[in-house]
């Protein structure tokens, strides 16, 4: 029989085949041994990439799965960062408690922001999220308690429980890198599981046909707000880690551009796919932070670009080129591979399977 029934658990297993297990192990081995041969700068860059992976995986649960667009995720990210630091410094909560609590606070704000989603659709909802992101940034910027415009310095990253006399401070970039790595692996697995089970399927159902979703018994109110809350939780966790990767942050770190960049990450990577979110976050972080770090070292056109930037854009820094690169990648994706990097990967795989026919 061609369509033999399978052992059903195999279909929902995390590691469906030996090949996947193999590549997962190779990939993890690379990530774990990475610090042994990389400079602090690259540990920092990779930690940042992983933080953004967490955020974009969560954002994709909202945007890719339920089809609701948020331009306010920098706000949840900020709540995660400020929340974690302030809960640690003001309430002396241990790090792990603080970051989870901050993520839940972000999730609560996500839930509240999800409420208008029940009435607003499309662009109107997006404007509401945009307003939320801006409001968070300005409220923080004008409140002394949150450090005002000066921002906050992250405290020592003690992952123990100092009150109980058990203290374990992560002060090196390597140790922070490993902490972020562990969080990233957990959050990615959690996202994969959510999308494979009841709630994740309900999210997709709402996107494809909310009327059909309702008549099969899905509570629209509950699942629309749940998607916002879940997505905000991921951004909150990312924000909490971000605070310690950077060590210092101010309100303007969490501006509208950051929210837009989050959206770019998942669009470039592939809407609705976890692998897409990961690859998009990595590529865009690289473009934003590393591509034109040493622009004058770029062969042939390097000096030209520097001169051009100083003449027409800004005398300081090469940020403009990074944004231009991101814009070009975005346009390229829209033109040639609307399903994003992940869609391209699937096509490539199909191509190789049938090659050379």
């Amino acid at each position, binding site marked *: 029989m061609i369509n033999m029934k399978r052992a059903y*658990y195999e279909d929902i297993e995390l590691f469906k085949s030996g090949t996947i297990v193999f590549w997962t192990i190779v990939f993890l081995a690379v990530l774990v041994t990475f610090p042994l041969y990389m400079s602090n700068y690259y540990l920092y860059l990779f930690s940042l990439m992983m933080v953004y992976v967490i955020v974009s995986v969560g954002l994709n649960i909202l945007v890719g799965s339920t089809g609701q667009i948020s331009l306010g995720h920098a706000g949840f990210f900020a709540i995660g960062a400020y929340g974690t630091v302030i809960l640690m410094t003001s309430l002396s909560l241990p790090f792990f408690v603080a970051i989870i609590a901050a993520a839940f606070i972000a999730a609560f704000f996500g839930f509240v922001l999800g409420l208008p989603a029940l009435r607003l659709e499309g662009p109107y909802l997006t404007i509401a999220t945009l307003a939320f992101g801006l409001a968070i940034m300005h409220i923080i910027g004008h409140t002394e308690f949150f450090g005002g415009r000066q921002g906050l310095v992250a405290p020592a990253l003690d992952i123990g429980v100092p009150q109980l006399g058990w203290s374990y401070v992560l002060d090196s970039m390597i140790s922070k890198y490993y902490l972020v790595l562990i969080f990233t692996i957990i959050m990615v697995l959690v996202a994969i599981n959510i999308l494979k089970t009841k709630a994740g399927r*309900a999210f997709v159902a709402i996107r494809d046909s909310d009327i059909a979703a309702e008549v*099969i018994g899905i509570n629209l109110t509950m699942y629309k707000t749940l998607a916002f809350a879940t997505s905000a939780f991921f951004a909150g966790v990312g924000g909490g880690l971000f605070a310690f990767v950077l060590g210092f942050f101010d309100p303007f770190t969490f501006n509208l551009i950051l929210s837009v960049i989050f959206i770019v990450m998942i669009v470039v990577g592939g809407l609705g796919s976890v692998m897409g979110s990961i690859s998009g976050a990595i590529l865009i972080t690289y473009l934003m932070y590393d591509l034109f770090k040493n622009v004058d070292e770029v062969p042939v056109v390097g000096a030209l670009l520097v001169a051009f930037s100083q003449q027409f854009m800004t005398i300081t820094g090469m940020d403009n080129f990074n944004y231009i690169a991101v814009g070009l990648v975005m346009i390229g994706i829209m033109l040639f591979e609307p399903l994003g990097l992940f869609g391209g990967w699937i096509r490539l795989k199909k191509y190789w399977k049938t090659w050379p026919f």
Partner: protein
Amino acid sequence: MGYFSVENLSISFGGLKAVDGISFSVEKNEIFSIIGPNGSGKTTIFNLISGIYKPDSGAVMMEGENMVGKTPDHVALKGIARTFQNIELFKNATVMDNLMLGRHMHMNTGLFGGAFMFGKRSKAAKEEVKHREEVEKIIDFLELQSVRDSFVGSLAYGKRKLVEVGRALALEPKVMLLDEPSAGMNTEEKDDLNIWIKDIREDYNMTILLIEHDMNMIMGISDRVFAMQQGQKITLGTPQEVQKHPEVIKAYLGEEEIG
């Protein structure tokens, strides 16, 4: 009052009385068909029953409980499932996921339970497997094996109609509302559907409300037929009675469907 009934149901859109004082009562395990020319208000009755529209007046009684005022998801919880005339599937999901979605209200795994589905013995994994088994029964029943993992968007129209029936069946409802399930199917598919609808009634102990334009099908499987026109009842009776009714013949005059 029967097992399932609508009582004096009315709704108008602007000045148009789309459904105008409709009442009927359906017995448990009956196949009850609704016929009428285009735009006579058949689909609107289904929308009123499933809570998508709120009637201006009237009641929808299911086992003694009024459904009017409930949201569609609550109506579903009470055991009423439906398909749509213009197909409302989750087209970016596979057939399997569409059917699993039909199991939604029977599943207990929450967001957290699902998030921590690590290992075969986790509660979430056990539940997934259990409901997969239920869905596989439906796949076998409707012979959907070959498209199990296909995306719904890529299927032929007739197959999609069938997947929608399967999804409604996955809800384990007491009453099923089928809105023109055979539209767009070829003769062979229609014959199969005919048999399946009868089987659904027998094997699943289902009460079925059926909207159809295909008179052969109506004549073949209905216990009773309700004929309507411009939102109002023409007549109710056995297929043979209704087919001979002069006003039904007049309403359908010029329409080729009448057999």
